[in-house]
């Protein structure tokens, strides 16, 4: 049996970041990926945040296959055919050090894998890790599905993604619940770059994102998104699995629903679908984060449920958790103490970073929305009616208009209900 210092299970951003930082610290590291190549099973909306990625691969933007730097983020609230929009644009985001880029995942993951290989990481593909190897209570390696398939390691980093099979087996996590996972479907739609830049009011090479709430998910708990790539647009919609099933929606229907909205349709017009992807996303938030370590084991990325669903951030949490895990693995191996106690450094460092801070901050959000399913149905409608009344020029004095609007609002939701919603939202989000 061949022995490594660190075995990383899973070749996504979390796993590759972990392997990269472990190898950089001089560890003999192997990544075991079940897919044909790193990136093969990976799906995400397609936004890569600069800060986190820079910490893993400094100045990655000089080499990595990126699509467009994001200079504008819009939020749209859809209600039937109507929409309300807000946005923020900062041209400074279009130059170094950037804020975020759109990416196409297959390309980016392959690139990240190459960086890991350059750092000396061995990447084994098409190999499934079936279990951890134990000696008494100590984890000493992994068992793969291949002949003569045992590999020894001082530390195993579990980066198997949202399907947390190994983490469950190792007694660290619980099996996924449909309330705690969202399913995201996404299409990549090809369009000429000039068209993309015209439609989104962008200078050459720059990018924008739109998050769509309300009817974008047919009132289900979730969000739609549109990201501009170089010569394509990524459009997708994610919704929590459980209410989706209850309301008889399929992910594909949700995406078609979003694509048929007038505001969205116009943006995609004339495009040709190049790719169709679907994936699960952990949405359990802070309260669903499993035990992050045990003797000789660290859990990172989606497996650790590290996903900030409000800000649609997952890959950066994954990469930072991976990087920290790689460093902690190297550090504990060097000191010769990989006990559960020694591994707590990982959790401490996560708590000190934005990763767990953000999750903790929004810890009530999931439940808030879960208990208030009307929010995503009532408010978009209410808001767009209010806007329509306010903006329609039909000779009514503005003062009278405002009164009408307030009256209309209370018809939809009682005063008490409105106050409850505001308070609840304030607690959950701020």
């Amino acid at each position, binding site marked *: 049996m061949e022995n490594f210092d660190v075995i990383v299970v899973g070749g996504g951003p979390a796993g590759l970041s972990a392997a990269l930082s472990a190898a950089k610290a001089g560890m003999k590291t192997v990544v075991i990926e079940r897919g044909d190549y790193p990136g093969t099973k990976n799906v995400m909306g397609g936004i890569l945040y600069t800060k986190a990625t820079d910490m893993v691969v400094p100045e990655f933007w000089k080499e990595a296959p990126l699509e467009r730097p994001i200079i504008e983020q819009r939020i749209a609230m859809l209600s039937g055919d109507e929409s309300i929009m807000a946005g923020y644009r900062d041209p400074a985001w279009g130059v170094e050090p950037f804020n975020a880029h759109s990416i196409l995942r297959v390309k980016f993951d392959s690139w990240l894998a190459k960086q890991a290989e350059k750092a000396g990481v061995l990447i084994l593909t098409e190999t499934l890790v079936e279990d951890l190897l134990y000696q008494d209570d100590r984890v000493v390696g992994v068992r793969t599905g291949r002949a003569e398939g045992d590999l020894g390691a001082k530390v195993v980093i579990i980066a198997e993604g949202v399907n947390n099979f190994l983490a469950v087996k190792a007694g660290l996590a619980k099996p996924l619940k449909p309330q705690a996972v969202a399913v995201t479907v996404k299409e990549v739609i*090809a369009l000429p770059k000039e068209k993309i830049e015209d439609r989104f009011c962008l200078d050459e090479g720059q990018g924008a994102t739109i998050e769509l709430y309300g009817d974008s998910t047919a009132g289900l708990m979730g969000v739609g998104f549109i990201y501009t790539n170089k*010569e394509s647009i990524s459009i997708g919609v994610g919704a929590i699995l459980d209410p989706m099933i209850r309301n008889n929606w399929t992910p594909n229907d949700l995406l078609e629903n979003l694509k048929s909205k007038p505001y969205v349709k116009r943006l995609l017009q004339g495009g*040709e679908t*190049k790719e169709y992807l679907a994936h699960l996303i952990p949405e359990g938030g802070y309260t669903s984060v499993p035990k992050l370590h045990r003797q000789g084991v660290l859990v990172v990325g989606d497996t650790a449920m590290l996903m900030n669903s409000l800000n649609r951030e997952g890959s950066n949490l994954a990469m930072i958790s991976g990087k920290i895990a790689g460093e902690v693995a190297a550090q504990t191996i060097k000191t010769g103490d990989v006990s559960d106690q020694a591994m707590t450094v990982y959790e401490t460092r996560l708590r000190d970073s934005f990763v767990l801070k953000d999750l903790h901050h929004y810890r009530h959000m999931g439940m808030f929305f879960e208990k208030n399913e009307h929010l995503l149905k009532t408010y978009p409608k209410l808001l767009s009616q209010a806007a329509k009344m306010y903006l329609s020029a039909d000779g009514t004095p503005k003062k009278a208009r405002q009164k009408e609007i307030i009256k209309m609002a209370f018809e939809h939701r009682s005063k008490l209900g409105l106050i409850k919603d505001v308070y609840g939202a304030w607690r959950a989000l701020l």
Partner: protein
Amino acid sequence: MTVLIDKAKCIGCGACTVECPVEALDLVDGLAVVDAKKCNDLGKCLTVCPTDALSLPNQPAKPKGKLDPEAGAKLNLKDPLPESVKDYATGNEKKTIRAQVAPVAGGDVWSGVWVIIEYTNGKIAPVSWELLGEGRKLADAIGCGLSGVITGHMVDSVIPEAFAYGAEKVYVIDHPVLKDYRTEPYAEAMVSLITKYQPEIILMGATSVGRDVFPAVATKMQTGLTADCTVLGIDPETKLLLQTRPAFGGNIMATIMCRTSRPQMSTVRPRVMEMPERVDGREGELIREEFNSNESDFHTKVLEFIISDAKNAFLDKAEVIVSVGLGLGAKRNLVLAEELAEVLGATLAGSRGAVEAGWLTHDQQVGQSGVTVRPKVYIAIGISGAIQHLVGMETSDFIIAINNDPEASILKVANYGIVGDLFQIVPALTAEFKKRLQHGVAN
């Protein structure tokens, strides 16, 4: 600035990488990739790209003037396409490469259209006659003769048939070493005839024999060969053979020309060309050639031939497929599909579900984890059409689907979708096909 590559259009043919004088283009994972540091916007690649996948930002339209006077085309784009190509091309045409027709080694002595009549184990492959029909059209378009070629042993009974189906001349090599089909003696025999009589076009069916012997013959003749053609035509100006075949998993049709060598050789898929009329008693010129070789010249010997009625022998090359899914309900109902397949001479296949249920064997499975098929006609019986099945059959020329669920995905890819009870419809189809085929009438 660099050349822009539209990855959706790029087919990874590599023409641009060869054309680029500064080696700025390369193929990565089957797609052209440009090295921005090397590219200096010469635009030579633009002219060779068969799919217009390349563009220069300051030159959005195609280059106006000819960049290379040498590339002046003898193919005139304004000329009407041959009828047979036009059907396919209407509204779909993308581009015609302009390329020079180089002088052919040996000059203009190559003349005539030949069809190899496949005769093995006492049976004539019907595609041979289909090709005599198609060869007639080609020969007329060029203004040359049409000949049949028979190589084998004891082939005399085949000769009048070849005349009956339209051959003006028939070349025969009849020799004991040709008793069983073997690559070596068959290729040698054909090469000896080709070298002596120099035909400009040779056609053969894309059967296991045609696809075995023709590559050997083409290599010996040092000439080009286009496999599995579905459309043939003659370029009106150059009189060259236009060989059209599906490429890239059937996503694209490619017309291929053999410009620099002779003969021009194609294998043609069976049952694509129309069967010509058989005229009993038609006569022509018979040319028998000697074949000076004996058994010791060859390195292979056939020990045995096990005749089998293996309808699934070449599922991926089958021309008509009857395919079943779980809608069939039980293995005993397979007989419905078998009867239909029998009448059509079709190959029996099925979905993953049908295979996993044990009704069929794994080599009969169509789809992503089975065989990818591209028949002329695909009849799907009780198959819902999971994506994994659709990728394996959706490039079939014509799809007929029978399903009781009007929402079944298979109906969305079908040319004819029949919603209804397969236990009523399939027997009705079988009876109807049988009636028409037996009486040889279409209506």
